[in-house]
């Protein structure tokens, strides 16, 4: 399934959060949203996810305006992991992951053995096999993030929208997650802070600043030394590694002398 944003904009009172953003994630691709704090990555993801409505433009799923589709039907195809999860939810890990099965079940139907099996499989995929009975508040930030992703995966989505899915993960799980997602047939749109990780694993990158798209395309075209310095204020060196992947290494910008 492909997801597109056409000229979407979002305002909050007189502040423009997002303007004239167009994005196209082809079926099965992995798209990275990049940009400094406040550049509009999360706002864009919320609009793609249908959590907020765009003030201008449209979001399309396989060419159909998502606002015209029933919510439940969309939920069977699109899963969302937002940046924030509650700290104090009185739920077990199994309860949280099982939430992802709700769109696939009739309203009054009980949880099935199939739901439980899928939950167990998703937890195993997240490296948390057998954690169903752990209490959610007892988990660390990174563990919560992995449970939240397992919750999105049992939803069996065609499109997965992730807001900074790697920010609490250790180095191992950061790579494991991106590797897993870029190989899967799911269309992924993820806001990322790690430019090098995005350069290695994304098919497409969208660089944003001040609520607008600065550049979009394959990482090697978008992540140039000049652009990174201009948008992030950080000096960068870019190049290809021996596997032919685009790589970015960063260092602090030289202090501006008198």
């Amino acid at each position: 399934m492909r997801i597109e944003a056409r000229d979407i904009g979002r305002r909050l009172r007189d502040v423009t959060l997002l303007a004239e953003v167009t994005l196209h994630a082809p079926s099965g691709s992995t798209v990275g949203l990049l940009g400094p704090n406040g550049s509009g990555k999360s706002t864009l993801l919320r609009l793609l996810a249908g959590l907020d409505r765009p003030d201008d433009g449209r979001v399309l799923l396989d060419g159909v305006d998502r606002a015209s589709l029933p919510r439940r039907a969309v939920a069977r195809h699109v899963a969302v992991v937002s940046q924030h999860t509650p700290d104090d939810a009185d739920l077990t890990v199994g309860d949280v992951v099982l939430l992802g099965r709700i769109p696939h079940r009739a309203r009054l139907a009980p949880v099935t053995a199939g739901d439980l099996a899928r939950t167990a499989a998703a937890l195993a995929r997240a490296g948390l096999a057998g954690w169903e009975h752990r209490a959610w508040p007892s988990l660390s930030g990174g563990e919560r993030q992995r449970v939240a992703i397992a919750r999105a995966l049992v939803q069996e989505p065609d499109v997965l929208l992730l807001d900074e899915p790697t920010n609490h993960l250790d180095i191992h799980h950061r790579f494991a997650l991106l590797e897993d997602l870029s190989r899967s047939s799911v269309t992924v749109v993820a806001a990322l802070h790690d430019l090098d990780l995005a350069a290695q694993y994304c098919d497409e990158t969208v660089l944003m600043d001040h609520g607008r798209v600065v550049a979009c395309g394959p990482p090697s075209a978008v992540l140039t030394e000049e652009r990174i310095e201009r948008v992030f204020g950080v000096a960068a060196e870019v190049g290809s590694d021996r596997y032919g992947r685009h790589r970015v290494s960063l260092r602090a910008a030289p202090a501006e002398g008198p």
Partner: protein
Amino acid sequence: MKAVVTAAVLLASIAAAVTIGVADLSAVEVLRTVAAHAGLPVTPLPPLADSIVWDLRMPRVLLAALVGGGLAVCGAVLQALTRNPLADPYLLGISAGASTGAVGVLVLGLGAGTVALSAGAFAGSVAAFGVALLLAGSRWTQPARILLAGVATAQLFGALTSLTMVAAASPDSTRSTLFWLLGSLTAASWPSVALCTVTGAVVLLVCWASAPALDAFSFGADVAQSLGFSPSRVRAALFAATALLAAVLVASSGAIGFVGLTVPHLVRRLTGSRHRTLLPVCALAGATLLVWADTLARTAFAPHELPVGVVTALLGVPVFAWLFRRPTGAAALPTRRQAAKPTPARRPRQPV
């Protein structure tokens, strides 16, 4: 399974509670009365005993069960919707509105019968809910707004009640206010039982049908929305349904505290947090609790009666203290023996 056990406990409690009281009656005598009223060919009890069972104790015990069950369900639903563990059925100023309404009826001389007072209390509750909605404004389905509006509404109606009482200065209005503030099942009657049964059944069904939405809400509105629910529609429907039930219950029994607050927390320890099981078990457990609380209220100092709200608070606070002392999510934590073992699969190097 847990629901079946709690249902059995509730039925046994109702049967036992009907036999307990100043006049000692056996279970067989109670059964005979019920059978006689059901039109079965049994010899009825003498009129006085029959009246004690059928006109006094049966409606009272059944009303206790209905009120307790209804309050517990309202509490569980509101706690999930607002993601606030302190939410209770009187969240939206409903109990304060009830006493204002009842006192208003007395003072305006619209009648002093139970029906007039109950109708006044119901009108007051609905008015309070309306004021809370007005205060919360167009974004009223946001939990923080509705909670604040509820607090303000309760203050307003509390003040109106006091003002009416001072202005009227009649002992009747003072007694009536106390009744509605503390809660009591003395006014139980078959019509109130019927009204609470119908409202309770409808609201419980509506809430139970929304169980998956409540599960999702307890993990945040964004998650609920991404799972296909409309947060504003679900909240609007469930706030309205629980407010209606709370208003009907308050009108028949006054504001009985602590049941709606504590029972959901207790039951979560027993059943976990999935509302499909949680809501029916809450209904049954709340019913059982109030049946016994009311039995205690009418027998402990017989022939004097304690307001049942006093009993629920006296029982509820220690339970609350015990809940507080346990870590959050304690039901889900491994037991001490399991915890002694090293946690397996702590750091498996598998792809996420």
